[in-house]
């Protein structure tokens, strides 16, 4: 008996999982980060379709088993860069999705292309399982070990190499897997091994493939400008940081500067993260005069309030800048005389740019007396800080274009949730204030949602009269909200009015504001910001939120999609008005998600279910209970996995960490659960596992928010370990139902197994996207509860074919 190719299978698994995580990185650079759910769905589709292919072709393949396996590995090697290269050639542009009828087809093409490498990987791994059935537990161990190393290892590697070089590395690794398989499977065509090794070496020495960001991304636009050049590029899992210099057409970033201002910003470099931005790295030589433009932005308001009653308080004020980036907000604080500034930034690369690579240009900003920089996650920092701040400034880091086009409609943002604001407010001095600046959108969206979120945060913090603690102003492009610990004083209100008058900014709300004070400088058809703020503070708040045509319900940690403003009713109306400019008010990210769901259903029917239905297997359909069982556990598993990925974005600080860690933990421990299930003799083990996983999930729903708050300050590695430990018991329980069901079915009607595999695959492909959609509408907690219920139904269905 041949020995299974343990090393080759492990390497293949490393490649497939590393590729899945790497793709989320690559798609962030080319398009935008929330394509992660589509990649998970494409991976599942590849696996599912390979299962169907294996079932239909097993007799034909069996004769050439070794060669097919080796070729699948080699094809994976070629297709990992190949499919991505081809996908880049597809002129898919999400911004045109609603204008151009050909775009959904292009999206589908990208999806199918991204499925191909996973099809090959799935084929290789599935082939080994089919061929060496009796040794499957050891194969499983190698497979899962590889998956774990792949998904986490790629995170480490992305720190060291740019993503396109990592892709070359994975190609080389898959070629090596093919070469090793030639030895392990004792294939006689020895030149194949030499060929594969040669190709692996070639992949290493060849330059990385060009990754072309969408021409509509901010970086692409900046590089088109005459005189622009990239002067620095750095990579980490947090993003690709690119610095652009343009001496001919300088950046001149002064977002929403007052029209009364006559100055020009000093020289600046543009800092882009994954092609989004830019944020400005401003030249600073110690002289404050060139920074005067920073006093002409709405975000300068809190400094005028702080110094209004007692000018000396401004100098002694403790300022915290969250999301300090390349330092504009720190410069703003310095300009206004602050001598005590804490700056928090997540991405070490950006701090290094300011402090090392461009230290002379930036005036070594982060090492100036009175300025301290912390490289950590904002919420974790605030949560564990013992300081009391007079001002917490939340920087405006996303670009105007991205925000106004609804690019972030699907992404989680844990800075603008009720819980986040509560945490920030709890760290303020008795007269301290929180300042948040957002881009202005019309009709008002961000501003009113933020206002509603702040009201909820104040109320939850025990404030009985939130109206006395809130001030909002608007310029022509930005809105600034102030939330104060105490009530605003008459002196402060006077300072706010004066600040706005001098700069022709409008008052949107202050305690005691009269209607005729709104809408004076920057005229809107209706004083919509003032009216909205008043309605949100009034007794009819919920009615106003419900009737508003955009979704402005406060964001919470359970539903942290701050940038989701989409409502179906309004969408219908806006789509009808598309030719009168209505289209611009529709967030495209939501229709994209729906389009992805439709294509996931179509593709999985087409590639997983239809081939079986058209083959001889059409006569071996399992009974309804068995079919439902595999459908249910497919959906429930995916719901749990996606909900936990999104939930752990808060704890692990970044979507990529969350995808890698949660995927790795789920795979590894679900495999362990499967292994235990095989040796566990209990009759009702599925029921027991479902009860256990239900109990664990409910416990997590209750304790995770508090636990995350308490532990979020710990170093990355420790948080990763804690995440794995938290997921382990849950995933182990979730590993039980699949093999148990398969064994049952094998005993009853073995011919129906391909169907069980396919139905489960279908549910996984669709579930990955559906879970994201449900999470946006119902929240993560509801998705997890739904998963528990579906597991419950699965346990019942199992009785039907026991």
């Amino acid at each position, binding site marked *: 008996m041949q020995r299974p190719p343990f090393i080759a299978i492990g390497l293949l698994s490393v490649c497939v999982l590393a590729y899945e995580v790497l793709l989320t990185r690559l798609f962030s650079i080319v398009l935008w980060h929330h394509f992660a759910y589509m990649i998970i769905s494409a991976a599942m589709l590849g696996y599912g379709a390979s299962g169907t292919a294996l079932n239909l072709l097993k007799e034909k393949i069996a004769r050439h088993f070794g060669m097919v396996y080796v070729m699948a590995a080699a094809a994976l090697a070629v297709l990992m860069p190949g499919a991505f290269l081809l996908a880049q050639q597809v002129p898919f*542009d999400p911004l045109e999705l609603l204008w151009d009828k050909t775009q959904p087809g292009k999206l589908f093409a990208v999806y199918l292309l991204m499925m191909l490498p996973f099809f090959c990987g799935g084929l290789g791994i599935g082939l080994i399982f089919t061929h060496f059935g009796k040794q499957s537990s050891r194969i499983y161990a190698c497979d899962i070990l590889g998956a774990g190393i792949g998904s986490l290892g790629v995170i480490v590697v992305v720190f060291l190499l740019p993503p396109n070089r990592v892709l070359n590395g994975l190609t080389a690794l898959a070629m090596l897997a093919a070469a090793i398989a030639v030895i392990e499977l004792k294939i006689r065509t020895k030149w194949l091994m030499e060929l594969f090794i040669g190709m692996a070496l070639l992949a290493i020495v060849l330059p990385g493939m060009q990754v072309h960001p969408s021409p509509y991304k901010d970086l692409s636009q900046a590089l088109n400008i*005459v005189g622009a050049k990239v002067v620095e590029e750095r990579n980490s899992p947090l993003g690709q940081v690119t610095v652009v210099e343009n001496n001919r057409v300088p950046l001149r970033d002064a977002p929403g500067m007052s029209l009364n*201002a006559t100055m020009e910003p000093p020289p600046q470099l543009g800092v882009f993260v994954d092609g989004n931005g830019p944020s400005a790295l401003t030249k600073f030589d110690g002289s404050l005069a060139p920074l005067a433009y920073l006093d002409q932005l709405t975000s300068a308001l809190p400094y005028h309030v702080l110094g209004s009653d007692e000018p000396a308080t401004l100098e002694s004020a403790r300022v915290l800048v969250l999301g300090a980036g390349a330092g504009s907000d720190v410069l703003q604080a310095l300009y206004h005389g602050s001598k005590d500034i804490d700056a928090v930034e997540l991405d070490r690369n950006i701090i290094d740019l300011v402090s090392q690579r461009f230290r002379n240009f930036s005036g070594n900003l982060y090492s100036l007396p009175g300025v301290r920089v912390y490289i950590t996650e904002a919420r974790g920092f605030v949560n564990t800080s013992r300081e009391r701040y007079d001002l917490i400034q939340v920087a405006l880091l996303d670009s105007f274009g*991205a925000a106004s086009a609804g690019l972030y409609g699907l992404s989680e943002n844990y800075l603008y949730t009720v819980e986040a604001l509560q945490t920030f407010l709890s760290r303020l001095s008795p007269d301290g204030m929180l300042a948040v600046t957002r881009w202005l*959108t019309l009709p008002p969206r961000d501003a009113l949602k933020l206002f509603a979120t702040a009201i909820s945060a104040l109320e939850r913090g025990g404030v009985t009269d939130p109206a006395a603690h809130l001030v909002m102003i608007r310029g022509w492009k930005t809105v600034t909200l102030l939330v104060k610990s105490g009530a605003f004083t008459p002196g402060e209100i006077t300072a706010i009015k004066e600040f706005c008058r001098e700069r022709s900014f409008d008052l949107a709300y202050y305690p005691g504001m009269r209607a005729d004070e709104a809408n004076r*400088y920057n005229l809107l058809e209706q004083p919509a910001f003032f009216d909205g703020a008043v309605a949100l503070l009034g007794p009819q708040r919920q009615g106003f939120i419900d*009737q*508003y045509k955009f979704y402005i319900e406060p964001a919470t940690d359970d539903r942290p999609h701050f940038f989701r403003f989409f409502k179906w009713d309004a969408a219908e109306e*806006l789509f009808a008005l598309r030719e*009168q400019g209505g289209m611009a008010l529709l967030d495209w990210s939501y229709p994209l998600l729906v389009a992805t769901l439709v294509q996931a259903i179509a593709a999985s029917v087409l590639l997983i279910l239809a081939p079986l239905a058209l083959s001889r297997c059409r006569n071996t359909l399992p009974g309804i209970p068995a079919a439902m069982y595999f459908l249910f556990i497919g959906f429930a598993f995916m719901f749990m996995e996606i909900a936990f990925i999104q939930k752990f974005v808060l704890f692990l600080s970044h979507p990529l960490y969350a995808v890698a860690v949660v995927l790795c933990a789920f795979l590894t421990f679900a495999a362990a659960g499967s292994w235990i299930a095989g040796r566990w003799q209990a009759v009702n083990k599925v029921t027991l596992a479902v009860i256990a996983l239900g109990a664990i999930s409910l416990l997590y729903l209750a304790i995770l928010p508090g636990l995350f708050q308490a532990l979020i300050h710990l170093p990355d590695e420790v948080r990763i370990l804690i995440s794995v430990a938290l997921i382990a018991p849950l995933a182990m329980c979730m590993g039980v139902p699949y093999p148990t069901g398969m064994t049952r079915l094998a005993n009853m009607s073995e011919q129906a197994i391909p169907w069980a595999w396919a139905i489960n695959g279908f549910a996984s492909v669709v579930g990955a996207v559906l879970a994201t959609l449900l999470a946006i509408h119902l929240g993560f907690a509801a998705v997890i509860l739904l998963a528990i219920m579906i597991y419950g139904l699965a346990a019942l269905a199992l009785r039907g074919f026991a």
Partner: protein
Amino acid sequence: MKRHLSLSAFLFFCSVIPTHGGEFDAARHRMVEEVLSDAAGTSSYSGRAAFSPNVIASMDKVERHLFVPADLASSAYLNRPLPIGYGQTISQPYIVALMTEVMRIGAGDKVLEIGTGSGYQAAVLAEITKSVYSIEIIKPLGEQAGERLKTLGYRNVETRVGDGYYGWPEAAPFDAIIVTAAVSHVPPPLIKQLKPGGRIVIPLGTQFMTQYLMLVEKQQDGSVRTRQILPVRFVPLTGGH
């Protein structure tokens, strides 16, 4: 309303008479009719029941299909934005008409455009006014547009490739300025180069999606007042609030 009807009748008449360019002409007339019917919803901004006759006549005259990539010519008269390369777009005709309308330009006015793009907006302006100055920041786009406008005989349009931040001091002051390039703030030199009583129009949003128009009006005393115009009649609230 009467004028609206007579203009529509005129356009319908134009569309049924075969003219030079055949199908493109008919498509253009249809596009203008569409833009015209969309205009009713914006009367509260422009202060008029419909777009001005000179704006409509200009939209009806400028051959948009000559300003888009050849492979998109067949879509040129759809009321939608189209890509023109380099991550730029040619705006939706309705938005072009609206921007031109709110600039309120007269036949003798001097207009500055920051962001030539394909040159379509400059051509529309050039049909209405005596001189248009246009600056493009992306070299190949600016060169192509300059060449195109020259070929089409727009002798009253001057183009330049370069930085639009400082405007066009040699030709200043201007009666109106349109800034279609992405800007983080309104460049103070542009306000300086605007005549008292003049207007600056800035569409804000992304490629393919104009969120709103910003209108800067310079008063006789040199101070400025701004208005923000939502191109679409969309009331965000239903019910009794």
